[in-house]
């Protein structure tokens, strides 16, 4: 496919890796923020192509992973109701709550439907006027324009039996939470290209300046990621900390103005609890008061649910880049994609699930990296 195949050239990948080896002189820790990028890195073995000096740690950018257990239990309580058609992206179906998942509920008779786009829910709502159609609106800024449009259109078209359970999360506050942490190791950031397609690059400039970290907004194909790593290492080696755009074929500095405008009309910023991380102030979206008629949390008034996470799981540290999946005693043993213990194993884009999917649980735990001597 055009704009995909040419960014998967093995030949060019080797040359980019050689260029990274040429410019690096000392150890650096880089974090890719987005779960989609983690998946590409592990699938193509990009980290194996890098010199020992460059370590990639994996960030919190998988919205399925970081949706709180309380929110998932809330979704299950709503989905169980006989008057509800519960719609979700496919990724959420197998995510375990405290005692079940959506697929199990579906097998027990709940009307749960997978949709490709939130806008499809409006069709379902029009066709089922006697039912309440609820969409599980998760995602980062990338998904917010689509979810905002579904709510906006429901109001415009007078579809009163459609509501959304909103669990939106935002990248910049999570980045800051990581960079502020006393045990932070991250020195450079591979920025989330598709989040920036919507939001633009400007909101990352104060973060790069405040924490003196380079942020390179990067695409999702193997060559994009290698190029993003090279640009970040070049900045680190030169002592620069700027926002750069590796992905200009898609990302504009100002982002998508029309999408941002509708998102701001529908959503407002709120505090949000992240699975494995905890509460991060001003890190989510909720519906503005004028859309409360479409707010599932208000319509269904689910009681506050007490939840408990596994005590051995270290997903919180993995999400912050402080640990790797291999550092967890449960990884690939008690904890697998079929029986996940925590956030980073529940979705294919979580770091632990990606490592498992590409067989890394079968490999010995990698030795602590000793930086190679600088090449002449």
């Amino acid at each position, binding site marked *: *496919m*055009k*704009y*995909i195949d040419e960014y*998967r050239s*093995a*030949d*060019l*990948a*080797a*040359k*980019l*890796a*050689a*260029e990274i080896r*040429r410019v690096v002189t000392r150890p650096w820790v880089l974090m890719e923020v*987005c*779960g*989609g990028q983690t998946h590409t890195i592990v699938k*193509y*073995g*990009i980290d*194996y*192509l890098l010199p020992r000096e460059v370590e990639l740690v994996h960030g919190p*950018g*998988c*919205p*399925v992973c970081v949706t709180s257990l309380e929110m998932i239990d809330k979704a299950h309580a709503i989905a169980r109701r006989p008057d509800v058609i519960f719609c979700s*992206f496919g*990724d959420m179906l197998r995510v375990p709550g405290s005692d079940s998942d959506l697929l199990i509920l579906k097998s027990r008779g709940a009307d749960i439907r997978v949709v*490709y*786009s*939130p*806008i499809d829910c*409006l069709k379902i709502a029009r066709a089922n006027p006697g039912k309440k159609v609820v969409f599980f609106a*998760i*995602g*980062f800024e*990338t*998904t917010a*324009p*689509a979810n905002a*449009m579904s709510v906006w259109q429901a109001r*415009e078209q007078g579809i009163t039996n459609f509501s959304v359970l909103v669990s939106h999360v935002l990248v910049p506050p999570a980045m800051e939470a990581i960079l502020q942490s006393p045990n932070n190791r991250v020195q450079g950031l591979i920025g*989330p290209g*598709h989040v920036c*397609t*919507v939001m633009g690059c400007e909101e990352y400039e104060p973060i790069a300046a405040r924490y003196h970290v380079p942020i390179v907004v990067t695409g999702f194909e*193997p*060559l994009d990621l290698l*190029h993003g790593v090279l640009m970040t290492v070049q900045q680190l080696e030169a002592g620069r900390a700027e926002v750069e755009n*590796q992905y*200009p*074929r*898609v*990302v504009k500095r100002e982002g*998508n103005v*029309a*999408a941002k405008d*509708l998102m701001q009309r529908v959503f407002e910023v709120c505090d949000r609890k992240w699975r494995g991380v905890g509460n991060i102030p001003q890190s989510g979206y909720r519906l503005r008061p004028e859309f409360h008629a479409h707010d599932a949390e208000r319509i269904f008034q689910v009681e506050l649910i007490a939840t408990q996470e596994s005590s051995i799981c270290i997903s919180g540290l993995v999400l912050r880049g402080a640990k790797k999946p291999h550092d967890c005693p449960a990884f690939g043993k008690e904890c697998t994609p079929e029986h996940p213990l925590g956030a980073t194993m529940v979705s294919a884009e979580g770091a632990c699930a990606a490592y498992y999917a590409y067989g890394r649980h079968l490999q010995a735990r990698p030795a602590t990296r000793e930086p190679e001597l600088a090449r002449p």
Partner: protein
Amino acid sequence: MCLAIPGKVLEIERNAQGLRMGRTNFGGIVKQVCLDYTPEVRVGDYVLVHVGFALSTVDEEEAERTYRLLAEMKQLGEIETPDAELTALATQGSAP
């Protein structure tokens, strides 16, 4: 989750609800895509699509510029001794 893929817009029309929709080809699979956030899009353009919405037009000039930059790096790299092990790894890594 933030997966977005490029597709070529084949046809543009307004649906019954007034949304600007594009019949879009993703390597042979054709789907309807909402173009409301990309008013500049014309038939024949490539758009980047996420959960049924075009979020951006793929900028052909920028794509070429990035690719030229990478290709120039390739020529630079060829001056050095090729690293057989690295090339083998890269070839493995690019299996579909």
